């Protein structure tokens, strides 16, 4: 399914002269909380041949949409432009872009070659420094991967200006929902990080829950009721081949996640009413038990270094978050606020844990340091649930369900700062999102 795209990165001639920073370098420091988005202009990319006309326009729009969606950037509409970009090679008229206060300028060109291969070139300019920011870059791929190439350009722009890796060229797997609350159909679906390119991975005959990507994005783990009982299942994203991993009779398995090296899975196994955490080696099938308490232990998530696991347990009487060594053993409680904590997810940067918190009849998505300090709630609603981190650890996506008989679920994203809450533009209802790593 994933169209293989070969990307050639090539430096475009003309090494940038050293930037003379007159007004300071073009820079967004995300940690400081951006209140005023940076104005940028992305004139339609130049179509270098006739076949590229529509693509050039579309690619520019996707780049703009990616950057704008972060809340860190604001596009200056082309109606304000003083000069246009008619040739990728021509020098940039900095004064014309300064006059409309475009701090960043993105120019580019698209051509369609033999066999439908397209080439996308771009440059980023720091307008107030009268200088390019970084080298020009060129991507080559198939025509139907044009959105990915646009995301690659946007990731480059984001990275050069924020100093952090981007997240646009990534995908999200989630549960697509249809039907009323008491007869809901659920299907696994996958889409680009901006909601485009939605495809279904299962047909909806059996209930499916909470998919999660493998560390390199080639497989998805989820819980399927295909057998009539919840079973952790692994699916190859390209071939859609799937197999259930642990179907011991008289047990239920659910809440699976990959270990950071992708060779094993951590999950919950229920037997006789008691739920504990286990791991399984995907090659050998060998299973090992990490917790053995009469309480519920579920929702395990590895730290990115693979050394620790955060999970939910109600051993204290209510669901709370605990951290233990990846081999099991003594766990220390990390959530101490008022309320119930569950669905912990370790951030890809390793510095934080995102979670769902229920308190006084409301649900929140929150983050805390891995020792439980500095808890911050990012959202509040009737039902927010199931956070997942963007590959760069700056954005969290989650599911939100409205109350009542007509309740519907939707996917939302929010910055780790709590700003820029957005509803994902997807068709139909969705829940349980999981973000892939940045695609290669």
């Amino acid at each position, binding site marked *: 399914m994933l169209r293989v795209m070969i990307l050639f990165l090539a430096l475009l001639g003309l090494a940038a002269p050293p930037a003379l920073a007159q007004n300071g370098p073009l820079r967004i420091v995300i940690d400081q909380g951006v209140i005023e988005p940076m104005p940028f202009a992305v004139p339609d990319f130049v179509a270098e041949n006739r076949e590229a006309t529509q693509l050039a326009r579309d690619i520019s729009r996707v780049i703009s949409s990616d950057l704008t969606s972060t809340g860190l950037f604001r596009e200056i509409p082309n109606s304000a432009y003083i000069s246009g970009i008619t040739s990728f090679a021509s020098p940039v008229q900095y004064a014309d872009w300064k006059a409309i206060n475009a701090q960043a300028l993105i120019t580019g060109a698209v051509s369609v070659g033999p066999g439908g291969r397209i080439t996308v070139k771009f440059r980023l300019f720091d307008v107030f420094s009268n200088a390019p920011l970084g080298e020009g870059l060129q991507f080559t791929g198939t025509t139907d991967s044009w959105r990915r190439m646009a995301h690659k350009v946007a990731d480059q722009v984001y990275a050069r200006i924020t100093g952090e890796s981007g997240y646009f060229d990534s995908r999200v797997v989630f549960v697509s929902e249809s039907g009323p609350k*008491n007869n809901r159909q659920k299907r696994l679906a996958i889409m680009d990080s901006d909601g485009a390119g939605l495809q279904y991975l299962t047909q909806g005959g059996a209930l499916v829950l909470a998919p999660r990507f493998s560390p390199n994005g080639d497989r998805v783990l989820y819980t399927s009721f295909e057998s*009539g009982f*919840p079973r952790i299942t692994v699916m190859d994203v390209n071939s859609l081949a799937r197999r259930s991993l642990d179907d011991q009779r008289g047990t239920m398995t659910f809440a699976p996640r990959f270990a950071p090296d992708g060779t094993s899975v951590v999950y919950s196994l229920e037997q*006789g*009413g*008691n739920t504990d955490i286990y791991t399984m080696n995907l090659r050998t099938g060998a299973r090992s038990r990490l917790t053995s308490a009469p309480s519920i232990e579920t929702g395990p998530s590895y730290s990115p270094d693979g050394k620790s696991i955060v999970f939910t347990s109600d051993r204290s009487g*209510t669901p709370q978050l605990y951290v233990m060594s990846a081999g099991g053993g003594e766990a220390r409680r990390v959530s101490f606020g008022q309320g119930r904590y569950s669905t912990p997810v370790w951030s890809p940067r390793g510095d934080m844990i995102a979670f769902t918190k229920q308190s006084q009849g409301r649900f929140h998505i929150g983050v805390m340091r891995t020792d439980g300090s500095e808890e911050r709630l990012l959202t509040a609603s009737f*039902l927010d649930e199931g956070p997942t981190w963007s590959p760069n650890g700056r954005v969290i996506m989650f599911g939100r*369900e409205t109350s009542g008989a007509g309740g519907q679920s939707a996917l939302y994203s929010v910055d780790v700062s709590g700003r820029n809450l957005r509803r994902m533009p997807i068709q139909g209802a969705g829940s349980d999102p999981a973000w892939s790593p940045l695609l290669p």
Partner: protein
Amino acid sequence: MNLLTKSALVVAMLGLAACTDPGRFGGSADGAGGFGAAGLGSASDPASPAYFQEAIGDRVWFAVDQSTLSDSAVVTLDGQAGWLNTNTDYSILIEGHADEQGTREYNLALGARRASAVQEYLISRGVSPNRVRTVSYGKERPIEICSEESCYAQNRRAVTVVGTGAGS
């Protein structure tokens, strides 16, 4: 206000749910492995699954976050055990459910606790363990869909579905 109208409405809705529920959530719909929902038969026949469902009561309810059996649940389950010990051709699938006030995976575990509480009780009343299986749907299969305690109370349940398939 018109309390009377409102409670009449609730009763009517419950009646409807009780009629439609088994067909939709029984073994036939979700196809729990090897477990086929039995033909219901007539409720006037004490040996029929319909009698089990309607006269004895196929479900028990739980308090928020709890999986302990209430006194009235025990009465219902004594009835279930008596019927199962008489009608030994049937096996059962106990479905545990939770209301929507909780996260998905935790509620799956909570529903399993509830199903297991019913399973253990029935076994303690002489039902052979190899006739009983359990499954949890967590909060995935509510029968009442309002977001108020009146609905939540109906959804925190364990339903004993009588079937013909092999138990263990």
